[in-house]
């Protein structure tokens, strides 16, 4: 259809594409220049559209006044633990549901699917109460395990992937005398690379950005994750200079943004993967 397009409409279209792209990306530009400005410049009206004077101390101020090394470490622990544990649980379950014959397999899969109808926010209160019942509020296990347990989506993704593997492939390994553990490790797992990448990308992103559960499951400062530190800033925007506030937002966003720019395909597969099939 491009061949039929006249050059004028083609250029209008490209211009429109660029315009709307810049419009959607504009808040990120504002964030980047805002994080570099001095306080008087950040509060200037009319606003300046590039920093006249760069103040790098915004980042150190942000780390000491809003964020903390502890929050950073907690976010990393939370993200890595959730993603790693959930990956192990979902990929093994997905494989078993796809390839291993055992009684109740279909029923189990249906239960996993059904629970996806109930959004996490609806069961926030009972999840809190169960966690509290185990005396795990304000501990790492209490922060991590209830989120790790949200395996339904991953089980679905990996079951759908493994079911596409031809049985002959597994049988070949079986004839060589491999047991299920070996079949999984040697045959199935090496083929699952792209699914794993897409799943890990989405799960890490969600864990890194998660707010409501850490808010409910932790209470002490030592247990804070980055979104919690940031949120306290949002509620008192006026007491922190905006340039320092934006530096804090940038510090928490930049790691994922950089990863995203280089691994977009995985994110897109992870988000759109379920539709294709």
């Amino acid at each position, binding site marked *: 259809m491009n061949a039929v397009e006249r050059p004028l409409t083609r250029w209008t279209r490209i211009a429109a594409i660029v315009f709307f792209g810049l419009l959607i990306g504009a808040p990120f530009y504002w964030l980047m220049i805002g994080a570099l400005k001095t306080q008087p410049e950040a509060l200037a009206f009319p606003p300046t559209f590039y920093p006249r004077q760069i103040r790098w101390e915004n980042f150190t101020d942000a780390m000491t006044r809003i964020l903390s090394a502890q929050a950073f470490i907690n976010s990393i622990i939370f993200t890595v633990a959730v993603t790693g544990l959930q990956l192990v649980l979902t990929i093994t379950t997905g494989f078993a549901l796809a390839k291993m014959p055992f009684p109740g397999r279909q029923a189990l899969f249906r239960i996993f699917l059904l629970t*996806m109808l109930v959004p996490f926010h609806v069961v926030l209160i*009972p999840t809190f109460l169960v966690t509290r019942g185990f005396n795990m509020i304000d501990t790492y296990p209490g922060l991590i395990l209830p989120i790790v347990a949200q395996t339904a989506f991953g089980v679905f993704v990996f079951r759908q992937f493994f079911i596409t593997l031809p049985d002959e492939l597994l049988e070949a390994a079986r004839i060589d005398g491999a047991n299920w553990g070996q079949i999984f490790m040697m045959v199935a797992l090496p083929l699952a690379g792209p699914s794993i990448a897409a799943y890990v990308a989405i799960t890490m992103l969600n864990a890194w950005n998660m707010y409501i559960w850490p808010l409910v499951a932790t209470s002490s400062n030592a247990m804070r994750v980055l979104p919690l530190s940031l*949120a306290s800033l949002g509620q008192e925007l006026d007491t922190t200079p905006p340039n320092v506030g934006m530096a804090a937002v940038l510090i928490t966003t930049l790691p994922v943004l950089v990863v995203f720019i280089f691994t977009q395909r995985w994110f897109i597969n992870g988000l759109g993967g379920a539709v294709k099939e």
Partner: protein
Amino acid sequence: MSDPSTLALAQAKSPIRRGGNKAGGDALGKRQTYMWAALFVGPNVLLFAIFIIIPILGAFALSLFQWNLIRPPVFVGLDNFTRMINDPRAINSIVRTAYLVVGGVIPTILISFALAVLINTKFPGLKLIRTLYLMPIVISFVASAVLWGYLLDPRWGPVNWVLAQFGIPGPQWLESTTWALPAVTIVTIWLRIPVALVLYLAALQNINQSLIEAGQLDGANFFQRMRFIIWPSVRPVTLLVTIVTLRGVLFESFDVVAVMTEGGPLRSTDILINYIYQAAFDRLDFGYASALAVVLFVIVMILTLFVTGKPKGEAR
């Protein structure tokens, strides 16, 4: 962020395929297979039962009790639900939620569809530009709420500066009872566009190009092609986008509201999910908060059924 589970749900309707029974049979032996299956499935099922199944059942049970964690829970039947009728804050929060859903979901669908059609082309540098469209995927709801708080600042924020260039006096946004909820809605739309866009782009790749060319030869202009050829052929994806966006708007907006406004000013952004959180964790009114959560769940289910039911009827 996104709610990928809904993507899966939309598909889960397709019949469950059976497969892979052969590999387990004879040589490996049933017992060995069961042992490995237990090893592969067991830990997950245990954790899932404790932290997912029990809370789901508990959510409904709790709504029938009165409980503040300090005294033992008291069974009150449906009292929590009748209490809602006389609770102006509950009514208000449902109305505000309805506003957010209508004002957030419909524009997200229309805008991301239009943008997907627009950028579904090829030119050098497109990949770079497309990244701009997808960037809101990575920013957390909390971080974007803080960022938009700055963007919308009525004194020195760039949004009101841009409006001023067009001679429009910018509103007070988060400090105004009229404009705080629209502000939250705008942020939510900005955050929801990329996922919807990704889904629409995938759908557009699958459209039969000859259909569009035929329309072109018949003299249909760009907007006619969009309205009468492309829009109908991506309907299944519109359905999916609607459900994904609906859930995103209903639930993830909590982060935005909690950070930007805490439900204010004067409860103008006090959406249901915010009220549930405050009733439970500020007032320790766990039974009533659970009843509100049940209402929210019923609303989600009704809306989902409404959305998924309608196109089927239209398609005869």
